[in-house]
Structure formats: structure tokens, C-alpha cells
């Protein structure tokens, strides 16, 4: 299938990637080229095929409910790589409370 740059801009928004008008046109071409190869998947006979998400076959891998302080950071370590901190908090410019979930 082919992808147009309006779709690319919508995807960019979902993916939180800033994209210029020019880039969106190039990306649309790239995606179309890639999807042409990917579309070979359509030839596969999968009507009765189960989905594989993980190949190990492992199930029920759990942690016990134990606090392991040695695996936790100190506050300084937690904040060590942050660009902006204030009194032990990470700081971002003011966000409107419009989250979706």
C-alpha cells in the first residue's frame, strides 16, 4: 500500500516526532517503499495460524512481593541525568491537565 504525507503527519503526531512538511513527503515515499516489501506477507496462508508474540514459551514469570532497596536509586541518582530539577523533583514546563487515560 502507499502512504501519503497527510497520514505521515498524523503518525508523527501519535509518535510524538516533530516532522516538517518536506520531511513528511520524503517519509511517505520511504514508507511506501518499505510497505511494498512488507506486503509480501499477504501471500502467506495464515487463516488457521496462531499468533506468536514471544518465542520462549515461558509463562508465569513473577517477582515475589519483596522490597529490594539495593535495587533502588538514591534521590541524587534518580535525578543525576535530568536537565531540570527542583527540590528533588523533575521539572517540565507547565502542562495542561488534558491527559487522555
Amino acid at each position, binding site marked *: 500500500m502507499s502512504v501519503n504525507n497527510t497520514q505521515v503527519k498524523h*503518525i508523527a503526531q501519535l509518535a510524538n516526532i516533530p516532522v516538517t512538511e518536506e520531511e513528511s513527503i520524503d517519509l511517505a515515499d520511504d514508507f511506501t517503499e518499505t510497505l511494498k*516489501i512488507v506486503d509480501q506477507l499477504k501471500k*502467506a496462508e495464515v487463516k488457521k*495460524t496462531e499468533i506468536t508474540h514471544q*518465542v520462549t514459551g515461558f509463562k508465569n514469570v513473577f517477582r515475589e512481593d519483596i522490597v529490594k532497596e539495593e535495587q533502588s536509586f538514591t534521590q541524587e541518582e534518580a535525578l543525576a541525568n535530568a536537565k531540570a530539577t527542583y527540590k528533588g523533583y523533575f521539572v517540565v514546563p507547565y502542562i495542561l491537565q488534558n491527559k487522555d487515560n
Partner: protein
Amino acid sequence: MKLNELTLKESIDALDKKEITLEEIYKDLDQACQAKNEKLNIYLSINSKALIEAKKASKKPLRGLPIAVKDNFCTKGIVTTASSKVLDGFIPQYESTVTERLKASGGVIYGKTNMDAWAHGSSTETSDYGRTLNPRNSDHLPGGSSGGSAAAIAADFAVAAIGSETAGSIRQPAAWCGAVGFKPTYGRVSRFGVIAMASSTDSPGPIAKTVEDACILLNAFAGPDEKDGTSNKEKAPDFTSFLDQSIKGMKIGVIYQDVKEIKETNQKLLKELEILKELGATVELVQAMDPHQAIGVYTVVQRAEVSSNLARYDGIRYGGDRSNFGDEAKRRIMLGTFTLTKGYADRYYNLAQKVRTLYLNDYKELFKKYDVLVSPTSPSFAKEVGASFSSPMFGELEDMLLEASSITGLPGINVPFYRDEKTNLYLGANFIAPMWREDLVIKVADAFEKNTKWNSWRNK
């Protein structure tokens, strides 16, 4: 001979016999890196305290020997970037399980190696810190994404190296650089602290000068890890115990893909596989599923997982914001996002995961008849510098012979089997076995390697 040219095994033995010292090894190594790293761009950073750390580790299994580590392994206190500007200057406050175990076994992180940014590629040309050149022939690429680690072996910039593979990223650069690359079974090695690319296929593993070295190094870091829910809870075997075994009676299937681009390489490999027959194994041509669909599966699954795995890079807690992503990362994130959106998830993501099942079934059938399967690692020799920009699917096409075994989690080893005298470039053979059967691949790859001319070429 310079001491940095020794294998891991040779170095350990020579140190134990006190024929050489760590100081001497590090001296030769430092000299080699000082002379050539600027040009080859293998190391993004070199550990200035390596020798000090080495001396403290001299009694441990790896004797304080210098190991090159791909820059997508988080190393506490050492800048870790996955070759992306997004993580410029990021200093992890934690250690990946692999490097933690490497250190505990007496391995010294000599430096962090260059890679395709975020491991997105098969050229090490998409690094935000410049491309790495193939030490065998600097007009050519080292392959990737673990190109820096493979090049470190080819250039004798370390006794052994650690890379990671999602679909080809250990074996393909090993093939292009002339090195042994060992991708263990998915889940054999912990992914904790390895900057995630595609979580359902990412597999850390060794790149080394010999199969034996790869096994010694893998012993240091394979095995269960409670911090990785997808790691195998069973204790890993001693991988060196499968070396120097007879392969008499073993059944080896040669996956013969009738694809134009690999015809010549196939012919060369078939000729070289006569070795296995001489060693008593049976060698037969087999037909496997079309590799082109594996490209599709890998492309979709990998990009979908990438789009989610790279969502954490928002510049708040570490690193720069999302405008810092390079073109390749942007392409993958966005295409992956697309394949998961409403209306397209069934057509792409879910379909790809179903075709993945077909490949699992295909291998299941093949492994009923054969112990080990072999094919060329890469369609041909290392491509020239600049080649990766030819197509947005460059990597996927170069790795077309590896994707099927990667999306199914199989263990595989690349062993160099052919050297072109004019170009000094190599071709590699890829041996694969069922999941968790590293024993089988090691037996065959080791026997094969020891009977090729590899050890006479190695230092060229």
C-alpha cells in the same frame, strides 16, 4: 607479533604461564588504538583506567583482559549513548547484567564501541557519531549494528567483544569484518540494561576471534537473571564443554535459497562445507521458507516494538528531547507506530506475528531431520562506504538470511569461511540449531572453524 593480536584463550594461557604480563598486553593495545581509532572510529570512548582495573581482576576467569562493549549496554558511570545524540552525555547510574557479570568474571571494559544509532541498521554508518570503517579494508563498511565490536576484533582493538543482535547485528558484522559472532538463543542472556531495540528478539552475545573465545566470553555472562522476565531460568551450560567434539554422524542441512544475490556465495560455501563431510557429518541441501517473508515479519515486528521502546526518550529524566532522533530512528518509530494503529494493526502487526508462527513451524520440521542448519550469513562481501543510504530497507535486505532465525529466537554462530585475497574481505557461514541447543551449533561451528584457513587469515 603484537600481544593484542592473541586470542582470549592464548592470552589467558600466556598470562598463566607468566610469559606475558597485562601491562604488555595493554601497552600494545593502547598503541594500536592510538594509531588507528581516529580513522576507523571503532571506540566512542576508551576507559582510561582499564589497566588499573585489569590488575585488580587478574585472578578472575577473564584475567583482567580488555573487552570491547557495544555502546547500547548501560555501564554505570560510563557514558552510554547507543550512538544516538538523544543520549549524548547520558551516564547510567546502573549496570547492565551482561557488563556486571563481565566485570565479576574479570573482564575489563576497554571501551564502548560505535554502532548504528539505536542498533537500527547493518552498516554502522547510521551512527550519530560518524561511521566506523572496516579494518580489513577501510573502503568498506563493517556491517552492523554491532559494527564497532566486530571491527574491534578485526583491528585487534580488544581480545574479545560484546555485541547484541536483533536480526543479524552480531553475525552480519562478524561476517563482514572477518570474526566469529555468536548470537545465543533469545533468552539465554539477560537483556537488562541493554538499550532495547526489538524486545522480542534482542539477544546479547560475543564477537571474538575464535569459536572457543566466544564460548569463554559467553560463559561469563549467560544464564538466568531475575531482572529479565524473558531470560531462561535454567542455568546455562559450560559452553566451552562443547568444543573439540566429534561431529561424526551429525546431520547438517544446508539451507539453499534460490536467490540471485547469493548464488556465488552459496557456491563458495557449498565447496567449503566439504570439510564437514570429511569430519563425518552428513551434509544435505534443504529447502526452507522464502526469506522474503521473514524480512516482512522482522520489519513489522521490529519497528512496532521500536516505536514503543523509544517512546521513553522524552528528555525529561535524561537525554535530549525527541527532535534529536536521527532520520533512521524517526523512520522506524513512525512506521512502527503506523503498523499498530487502528485499522492497520491486523494488516501488519498481527499478520506479521502469524507469519512468524509459520517460520517457527518450518524450523520445527527442519530440525526433525537435521541437527544443525547452515547458510551464508550475508548475501555477499562487505558493502562499500555509503551503501547504506541506498534504500530504507538496506539492513533488512543485507540480513535476509538471518531474519528467519532471529524472529524464531534460534542460536547461531558466524564463522568466516572465505577470504578474498584482493580485497581482504570475508564471507561467513551461519550455523543455527533449535532453541537452547547452543551445544549443537558450537560443536559444528568449532569443528568447521578449526578446519578452515581461518586461523591463518585472522591477523591479516
